[in-house]
């Protein structure tokens, strides 16, 4: 079995699962309780928070736990809108965001907010001039993803940060769900960013857990109100087993990050170089620094994405059409549509997404299977 769908989800690491189990079994107190069981749970909660903060160069109080990437994205967008509504009603994002951002923006639009979607070029990248031009006196949020989940484009975050230094009141959010552990932490945790959202299950932690970074001093309204957990910003009894497991997963992820990323890049390169030679193949991801090392998206003309996915599956190789979220809806990829790729081609796109557990041997095996399948696809396409 070859699993090349790590941007959809990753397999939880056995060591991480063991932390989850042990915490569920032994440290089951409610961190808010005053007695020793609560105390112990509270300490583990804060220790986990500290570990995550240290790994990201943040301070402990800047890390807030969520249920995952979707919650983090919803929270920053809507929480900013609520918090800063008397200062303005305009939000800026890109045309290639994850639906968690896009649909939150759409919801706000129905409530009277105004949204600018920055267009992207043929590589799925926004232009800084467009960003500059989009900023208004009423702008309260700029939300840009770090790494596109469908084709792997890295957005010009540093440059955006520079622009926003002239607008210190605007909240700057980065969706780093696909960007963590890809050796671009300096781009993500830059000196201007105010909020960053992360999701645990994209880096071998369990589902249902994530966190946001919220720069000290930046205010955001809570979406979940109640018992006042997370400094009154995100109520709900803390999911401690998952939180501790995620803290561990993040530590493992960032250990030897450079080597892991180099390995992923090498695997991606080997497949990229191979498939590029075939005339029916159009690649959307590139093999340069402007793209994440773990995502490769390409289309085989005339063959539907699902057909390709299933053909590979028969051979024990698991890939996806562009994103797991859109694949079951038989929709054309929103990123490729934003890049003005004709629908005929974008519905033929597939995505390979790697992580450090993959090997070069798997890339060779993929290439071998690709050769066999290509001959069949050629007939379909004709």
């Amino acid at each position, binding site marked *: 079995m070859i699993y090349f769908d790590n941007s959809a989800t990753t397999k939880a690491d056995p060591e991480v699962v063991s932390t989850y189990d042990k915490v569920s079994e032994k440290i089951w107190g409610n961190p808010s309780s005053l007695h020793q069981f609560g105390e112990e749970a509270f300490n583990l909660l804060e220790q986990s928070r500290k570990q995550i903060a240290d790994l990201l160069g943040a301070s*402990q109080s800047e890390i807030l736990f969520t249920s995952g990437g979707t919650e983090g994205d919803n929270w920053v967008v809507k929480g900013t809108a609520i918090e800063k509504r008397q200062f303005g009603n305009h939000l800026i994002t890109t045309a290639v965001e994850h639906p968690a951002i896009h649909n939150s923006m759409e919801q706000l639009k129905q409530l009277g907010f105004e949204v600018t979607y920055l267009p992207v070029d043929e590589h799925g990248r926004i232009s800084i001039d467009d960003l500059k031009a989009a900023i208004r006196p009423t702008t309260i949020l700029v939300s840009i993803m770090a790494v596109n989940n469908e084709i792997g484009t890295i957005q010009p975050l540093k440059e955006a940060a520079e622009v926003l230094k002239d607008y210190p009141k605007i909240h700057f959010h980065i969706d780093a769900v696909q960007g963590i552990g890809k050796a671009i932490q300096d781009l993500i945790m830059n000196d201007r960013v105010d909020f960053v959202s992360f999701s645990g299950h994209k880096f071998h932690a369990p589902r249902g857990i994530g966190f946001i970074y919220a720069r000290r001093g930046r205010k955001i309204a809570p979406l979940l109100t109640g018992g006042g957990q997370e400094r009154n910003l995100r109520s709900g009894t803390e999911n401690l087993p998952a939180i501790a497991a995620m803290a561990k997963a993040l530590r493992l992820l960032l250990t030897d990050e450079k080597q892991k990323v180099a390995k992923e890049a090498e695997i991606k390169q080997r497949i990229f170089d191979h498939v590029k030679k075939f005339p029916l193949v159009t690649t959307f991801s590139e093999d340069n620094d402007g793209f994440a090392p773990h995502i490769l998206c390409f289309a085989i003309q005339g063959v539907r994405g699902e057909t390709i996915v299933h053909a590979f599956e028969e051979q024990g190789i698991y890939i996806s059409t562009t994103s797991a979220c859109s694949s079951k809806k038989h929709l054309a990829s929103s990123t490729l549509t934003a890049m003005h790729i004709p629908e005929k081609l974008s519905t033929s796109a597939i995505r390979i997404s790697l992580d450090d557990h993959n090997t070069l041997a798997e890339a060779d095996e993929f290439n071998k299977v690709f050769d066999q399948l290509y001959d069949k696809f050629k007939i379909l396409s004709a």
Partner: protein
Amino acid sequence: MQYSEIMVRYGELSTKGKNRKDFIRQLGRNVRHSLHDFEGLDIRAQYDRLHVALNGNDSTAVIERLKGVFGIENFSPVIKLEKDFEAVKETALQMIQAQYEPGVTFKINTRRQDHQFEYDTNQINDKLGGHILRNVPGIKVKMKNPDITLRVEVRLNGIFLSSETIPGAGGLPVGTGGKATMMLSGGIDSPVAAYLGMKRGVKLDMVHFFSPPYTSEQALAKAKELTSKVAGYAGSINFIQVPFTKVQETIKEKVPEGYLMTIQRRMMLRIAAAITLARGDKGVFTGESLGQVASQTLESMMAINDVTNLPVLRPLVSMDKTEIIKIAEKIDTYDLSILPFEDCCTIFTPPAPKTRPDLEKTRNFEKLIDVDGLMQEALDGIEVTVIHPGENFMNQSEDVFAELL
């Protein structure tokens, strides 16, 4: 960049005349203390500067530590090279490139001690400046207030390059200002006052009052943890815990409600003063800020201060809460201070304490309790712990958690 040493420039102490030697010696000790866990460092405190030879240690980690040592004006990471001018040119270029930003200006500042060296000061300035101008497009030379000053020192034992000046913590080396006690509650203010006291060179003994079962073990642990945080500026700190339950219970029983707080504070200051004198310390620091709460009005201070003629030092006296919080955040005590554990100042608080207690009345009400007996009992029960920087008191299961995380 692999630096070979950190060059430390002294602060105020440079001007302190005949005490200078003691200051330098103390600073040397403090720097050694703060860097004790790095192996192979060579630290020499000389008359004009202090040198930390890194011998392969990571400069960033050493720099982070040095930022917390009082008595340092600023410091520069330095690269030592053999007297090979080609190598100097190459390294100088790399240093500039590492700091390059569009529109940046620079100058070369050469000092030549070794007059045998093949080039003189002006030639070195010209040759290095020229090399950088040729290889860094867009960079400009500026003599007055350039963005980057590349310092070149040609000494007998090599050529030393530095291009960055990092501000130090300022102040005076801890220990040069004598010793005092500090009344540490566990709130936001007292750690900040301790920090400011130490910044003026004073070595502090922490006095903490605790009242079990009204205050929890956690409150005591929190005070110790705060001490360990500020110990980063002092090396290590004596933590003196004073059992205060009996005193508080007696006051509560015998004294009229409006004067509870005033007399309680008088007892605290009395005990702190006794500890101060017994330890040979020369004053009492507190975290009081004028007008912040009932016990911190001038009238209250007068009624409380009445019990001792030791200097009571209040570094925060004229600061706003927001200013105090800013410093607490900077020294990383804020998050700890706001943990909600009852301390002995918050229990037994009367609903309406007197904000303007009358000194005569205070003295009279105090006669209702056995001041000397209670004091002696408290002093007999004190415990002293030596607390080191980075020690962990709040979360004793940290090691157990390490395996989980």
